[in-house]
């Protein structure tokens, strides 16, 4: 189970609201490579992981991703605080506003709502870990793209922190994959599911 800690993993304090930035950053909440899909992916996959180490990696990174979801949501909340109707129109924020006002809803920058189809839990540790490695890279690329679009240092700072985490988690999943592969030998290396075949 989980217990809430009344703090963000890393500070988010944005002085100037900017709904145009919220429109693109929202992809890291509910988009295809966002923090919600990351968290649900790892927390779903952890049950059938064949070693304690990989269970722990999925459990702990999946938990950290929940904190990242909260950071992205805090960024979105602060970017859309106290807006006037004029600011909403000028930023092109009407499309979101009409459905959600300034509520935080998980969707991609394109407006497509979050779906569990963004991730897989295949019940095969090698398959799952290879997806996880790709997921961390895709999220890192998304942060790179966001950092190309965002000038405000108050917004860039937490985005840079989150980008770094993708790199570290890629490393941890690589170690997890190596641990699983070390359990295999030439007889079972191919067409073998270390989570299912004994």
């Amino acid at each position: 189970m989980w217990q809430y800690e009344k703090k963000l993993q890393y500070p988010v304090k944005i002085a100037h609201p900017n709904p145009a930035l919220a429109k693109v950053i929202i992809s890291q909440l509910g988009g295809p490579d966002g923090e919600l899909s990351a968290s649900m992916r790892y927390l779903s996959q952890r049950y059938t992981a064949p070693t304690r180490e990989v269970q722990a990696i999925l459990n702990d990174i999946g938990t950290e991703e929940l904190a990242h979801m909260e950071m992205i949501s805090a960024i979105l909340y602060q970017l859309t605080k106290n807006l006037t109707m004029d600011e909403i129109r000028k930023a092109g924020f009407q499309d979101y506003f009409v459905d959600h006002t300034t509520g935080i809803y998980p969707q991609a920058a394109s407006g497509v709502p979050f779906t569990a189809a963004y991730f897989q839990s295949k019940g095969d540790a090698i398959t799952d870990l290879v997806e996880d490695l790709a997921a961390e890279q895709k999220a890192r690329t998304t942060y790179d793209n966001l950092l190309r679009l965002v000038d405000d240092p108050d917004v860039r700072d937490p985005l840079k922190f989150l980008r770094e985490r993708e790199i570290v988690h890629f490393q941890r999943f690589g170690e997890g994959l190596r641990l699983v592969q070390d359990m295999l030998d030439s007889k079972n290396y191919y067409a073998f599911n270390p989570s299912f075949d004994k």
Partner: protein
Amino acid sequence: MPKSEKTKLMCRIQALGFAVTEASEYLDSHPTCAEALEYFDKHNEEYKQAVKEYEEAFGPITASSAGSDRKWKWVTEPFPWEGEDE
């Protein structure tokens, strides 16, 4: 604007909490690394101390420390996404 004592202590908690998270994830794949275990213990101790200090001065970080004083202090302090600096 200069940072308040409350914000400074929260920043310290965030930094120490991050060190603990990072060390935990590293230990997941290196569970016998003595250096990492020592790093974890040191920062975890400092983290617990800083949380205790913060909760005594400014209010609860977990709901388990929100009771006492005939008031549920969980609802008297802001939630962290508000970005407020008191």
